């Protein structure tokens, strides 16, 4: 081997060694800061939520947390053999609470945000919101947004469903006759009384309407808002544990029971 080749191999070897050490140090840094290690050491998982949002989370006068998210946090912690400490933070402060290490995770009817995926790791979705069509149970004619065209469709004045129907009329060429009423109960009454062929509202509002058997959710959701759990980007081990717990809670029926208890059977406090 020529002296020149020897030099090249020596430099390449040195660079590889530096790279190896850098990767090793990086891995150690991540594992040292991973919230999962901290949680395991203290036996407590700190869950940030804006507890003013039934049926997902709210806190009563005794400081007890209720709702689907609160129970989901307890179910995950129980699976891990840990205690839960709830950290009540206004919604716009949730991410900063996570970054400032005031909490280990956010579980607060949190929508996935593609803009933040460099800073946080999101779990798989555990429940979905979004706008849906509600029709009388016997009605088979309406399944999609296009089917609404030419029909009277009721919404709550100013609600997201109202904006959605306005958008469909403007951008998709539909001719939906929008019946905007002052509150959701008036809109439901309009559907029940035959003044409207369908109602468009949030899935979370729609689920309790289906319990009597008189109404049902038609077709696919018009919009889908999956709710997810967020951890800091430096905590991949915690993210992995959360996904594993969600999978397990889904397989054993816990997630379905929680949804039935909090979303279908009750509407909060």
């Amino acid at each position: 081997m020529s002296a020149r080749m020897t030099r090249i191999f020596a430099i390449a070897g040195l660079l590889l060694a530096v790279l190896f050490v850098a990767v090793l140090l990086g891995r150690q840094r991540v594992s040292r800061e991973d919230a999962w290690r901290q949680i395991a050491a203290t036996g407590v998982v700190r869950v940030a939520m804006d507890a003013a949002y039934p049926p997902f989370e709210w806190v009563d006068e005794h400081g007890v947390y209720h709702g689907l998210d609160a129970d989901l946090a307890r179910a995950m912690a129980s699976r891990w053999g840990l205690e839960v400490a709830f950290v009540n933070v206004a919604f716009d402060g949730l991410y900063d609470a996570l970054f400032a290490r005031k909490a280990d995770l956010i579980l607060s009817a949190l929508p996935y945000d593609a803009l933040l995926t460099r800073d946080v790791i999101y779990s798989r979705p555990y429940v979905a919101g979004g706008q849906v069509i509600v029709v009388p149970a016997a009605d088979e004619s309406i399944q999609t947004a296009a089917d609404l065209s030419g029909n009277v469709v009721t919404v709550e004045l100013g609600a997201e469903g109202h904006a959605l129907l306005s958008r469909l009329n403007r951008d998709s060429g539909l001719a939906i006759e929008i019946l905007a009423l002052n509150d959701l109960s008036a809109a439901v009454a309009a559907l029940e009384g035959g003044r409207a062929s369908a109602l468009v509202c949030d899935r979370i509002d729609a689920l309790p309407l289906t319990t009597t058997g008189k109404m049902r959710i038609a077709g696919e959701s018009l919009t889908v808002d999956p709710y997810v759990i967020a951890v800091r980007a430096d905590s991949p081990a915690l993210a992995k544990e959360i996904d594993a717990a969600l999978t397990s809670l889904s397989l054993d029926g816990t997630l379905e029971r929680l949804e039935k208890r909090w979303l279908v059977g009750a509407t909060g406090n």
Partner: protein
Amino acid sequence: MAIRPPAGRWRIRHHADMRWIARAAVLFGVILVLSAPTKRLVLIGPAREVVTRNHKMGVHTRLTDEVEEWKIQRNLEMVREMGAPWIVEYFPWAYCEPREGRYDWRHADLVVDHAVAQGLTIIARIDYVPDWARPPETTARYLPEESFAQYARFVAAFAERYRGRVNHIIIWNEPNLAFEWGYRIPDPAGYTELLRQSYVAIKAVASEIQVLAAGLAPTMAPAGSEWGMDDLLYLQAMYDAGAAPYFDGLALHAYGFTFPADDPPAPDRINLRRIELLREIMVANGDEAKKGYVTEGGWNDHPRWTKAVSPYLRIRYTVDAYGMALRDWEWCEAVCLWAFRFPVAQRTYQDQFTFVTPDFIPRPIYTELARYARGEPFEFLLEAP
């Protein structure tokens, strides 16, 4: 000594090469033009005026992350068309000075140019700390005291650039919340020092600019709370720390939550008129000549948030609030409610604060406020305006 090629041959080859280079350059240019993303041509247009019967109406726009110029323009046009002459806009320090001393005003220029063209009066809120001005592992709301001078230098640079077009600057936002103070215990004396340095720096370059002390978050956080400090106590503590000479007006955050606009104020109640208690503190400290500016506030109409009201009530209360400000709050210059429109849907209850959707569909509250501003009959509300 250089050897030159024979003149004739060289000239011929040179000309042939130049022709090919020119053709390639033209082709490259055509490809470049054709492959460039289409961009809507946006002209600032002639100066417009806001037509309204309530000169205190305003909104907090949220154009910070709005990328497309036509959307910035359309957003501000819709504010004018609604009849609101005032806007509050957020100019994040980290966006405008990404590296120390290296300013990037491009986006701020767009917002200011279009707002001025629409005849709007701008109140600028400035915070959000760049990485280089704070320690690692801190949030963008964490401003260490050693960086106060850098913040002051920035707000002065902002004032100098936009003087004559932006005449009101808010120093920081809700420093009585731990979240807005970088998850530290709120510190009225510390904030007062930031206010002092900023005021002195701004006045040195543009003495006519109105420096507003930060809007405080309405909260009844108990003494010693790690999350926040009661806004009434915080304002008095600012005065105690010597803040009075260092602000020309006070920004106010006036949220109604579940209460109507005329719900009476009380220290143990968070409602719209709580700002009257802040006003009393100003007067008690000899600041009755200074004006107040509502720079955030209003109601939310999300179906599940416990601090929201129905959309119908939100419209009713909002109309009442603008009317009350005009009629009863002589000391209040403007009422800018949160938030006119977000560039993208938040998909949380925050969306239900807005007047217009991200794709510019006016919500009923927008339609009704536009009618109120023009003195026309309401479309949804039962009462006459």
